[in-house]
């Protein structure tokens, strides 16, 4: 619905605030512009409702160049919420909310109804309509600021750090409230912020800017998983990145890639030797193609005294596996809940490629609680893990 084509803004004095910006925004999208102070977020936003005139390039709204539209009508058709709340102190809440409808010549009765209706959206009682802004708390005022932008039902709303001045608790509740509102109303939102948590929480897509240019555009997940460069990584912050990494860590990333296995055709005595040598109490059984077929444990062998029997005859065939690309957080639940000591990791063709043990999981959990203090050399432990998995309980 909104397209930036090679848009630049050079302020008088030569400051290049926006530099060859290309961006396409879809209907109903919640877009967050984020970046350090002075990177051109506000300028970019203000070019949309023509508070700032682009030096170069085109901005198309629903296919039409905004510069070719009547500026007053254009602005009345775009909701606008500014940083410092910006309610008019001399107008009642009613008049503030219904300002744009009034400018558009909507009759008083209808305006009034609309103001009441909107107030209900944020669960504020009608009595507020006749109050003045200074009689409201900061959070209430900014709610009204948002309602005012919604009053004439514009499809597109611009918001410049609207919750920046609020205390963290109020901000949190307003963010949640607003996200719900946006989804239920299907508005396209362009939201400027310098708070990464806010962007992650609200945005469908985040646009990261630096010195007037776009560094990366993507969903919060995409950006957290694959930051484009060091700037983005720095901007996201170490803590958040580490957290996200855990969030998106796959089984493949933490598994032990060297599971102790044995061929289908091997005998039980060979199996016992392998177990002793590798100091494990069970073996995974694979066929010639490396496909996982089952497992044998030392107890099973112990019960069956015929050491010349083939592993294939004794093995347990029905075992739980996990794919390497499974998100760790999904796998963890299964493994911990089922109480398995370990789970073999397979690829798409069911070939055995690793093993994940309770010890792996416990290490990851410790890391997420205390941070990664030392190196990631967990292999030493893992090698023994299948045999000694008693650490997991109670963590």
């Amino acid at each position, binding site marked *: 619905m909104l397209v930036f084509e090679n848009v630049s803004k050079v302020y008088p004095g030569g400051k290049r605030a926006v530099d060859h910006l290309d961006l396409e925004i879809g209907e109903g999208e919640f877009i967050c512009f984020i970046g350090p102070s002075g990177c051109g977020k506000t300028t970019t936003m*203000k070019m949309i409702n023509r508070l700032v005139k682009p030096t170069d390039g085109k901005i198309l709204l629903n296919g039409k160049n905004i510069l070719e539209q009547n500026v007053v009508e254009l602005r009345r058709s775009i909701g606008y919420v500014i940083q410092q709340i910006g309610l*008019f102190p*001399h107008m009642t809440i009613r008049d503030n909310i219904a300002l744009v409808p009034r400018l558009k010549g909507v009759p008083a009765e209808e305006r009034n109804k609309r103001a009441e209706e909107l107030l209900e959206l944020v669960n504020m009682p009608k009595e507020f309509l006749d109050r003045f802004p200074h009689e409201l708390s900061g959070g209430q005022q900014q709610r009204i600021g948002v309602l005012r932008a919604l009053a004439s039902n514009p499809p597109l709303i611009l918001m410049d750090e609207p919750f920046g001045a609020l205390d963290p608790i109020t901000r949190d509740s307003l963010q949640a409230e607003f996200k719900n509102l946006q989804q239920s109303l299907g508005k396209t939102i362009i939201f400027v912020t310098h708070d990464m948590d806010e962007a992650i929480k609200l945005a469908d897509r985040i646009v990261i800017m630096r010195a007037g240019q776009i560094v990366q555009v993507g969903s919060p997940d995409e950006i957290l998983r694959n930051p484009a460069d060091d700037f983005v990584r720095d901007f996201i912050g170490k803590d958040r990145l580490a957290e996200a990494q855990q969030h998106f860590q796959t089984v493949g990333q933490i598994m032990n890639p060297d599971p102790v296995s044995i061929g289908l055709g091997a005998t039980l005595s060979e199996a016992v030797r392998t177990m002793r040598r590798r100091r494990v109490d069970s073996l995974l059984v694979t066929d010639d193609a490396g496909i996982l077929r089952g497992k044998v444990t030392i107890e099973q062998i112990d019960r069956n005294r015929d050491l010349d029997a083939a592993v294939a005859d004794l093995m347990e065939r029905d075992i739980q596996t996990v794919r390497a690309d499974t998100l760790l957080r999904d796998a963890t639940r299964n493994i911990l809940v089922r109480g398995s000591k370990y789970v073999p990791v397979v690829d798409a063709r069911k070939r055995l490629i690793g093993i994940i043990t309770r010890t792996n999981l416990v290490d990851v959990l410790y890391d997420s609680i205390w941070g990664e203090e030392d190196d990631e050399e967990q292999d030493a432990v893992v090698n023994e893990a299948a045999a000694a998995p008693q650490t997991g309980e109670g963590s």
Partner: protein
Amino acid sequence: MDAIRSFFSEYGGLLLEKTWEHLYISFAALLLGVLVAVPLGILLVRIPKVAGFIMSIVSIVQTFPSLAILAFFIPLLGIGKVPAIAALFLYSMLPILRNTYIGVKNVNRNLLEAARGMGMTSFQRTVRVELPLAVPVIMAGIRMSAVYLIGWATLASFIGGGGLGDFIFDGLNLFRTDLVIGGALPVTLLAILLDWVLGRVEYHATPKGIRGQGGAA
């Protein structure tokens, strides 16, 4: 007591007439001042390049001695009420102009930007945002101007403009203390009364939402 009673029986009618003249001259000058200075003040905010220049001219005019200004108007407009009003009008301008300029200029930039961003025309911004928010400051200028004018209007007497100055200057010429007091006292009372009345006007003209918050938002 008797002296007061006899003063009123002898000069009562004249006193009323002169008081009326005094008010007439003052109000005429004030009205002209408001009509010219308020729009000019708003305009100046829009053209910051000339604003400084105009404001300094007005300030300089203000420093001319009042009598000199009055005398200056005699060759142009002769003597009587018209030159008196013209001169007083010039004087009333500065406080009103300055306060309008400052009041409008100090309206929160963010509010004006919000107004612009929401699609108010320039005229709508002036009438619905700038003026209402500047009312307390503009009114303070008008009040100050009005009180000064009541005092300065006394000098109108010098160029035949009439007013309570006639009493005072006659009294001074004739060494008649009763006439001096009979003229000066009403001038003082008028000034106090007018200040109070305009104070009420200011209160009611100020939008309810910004009353008692120290003026411009």
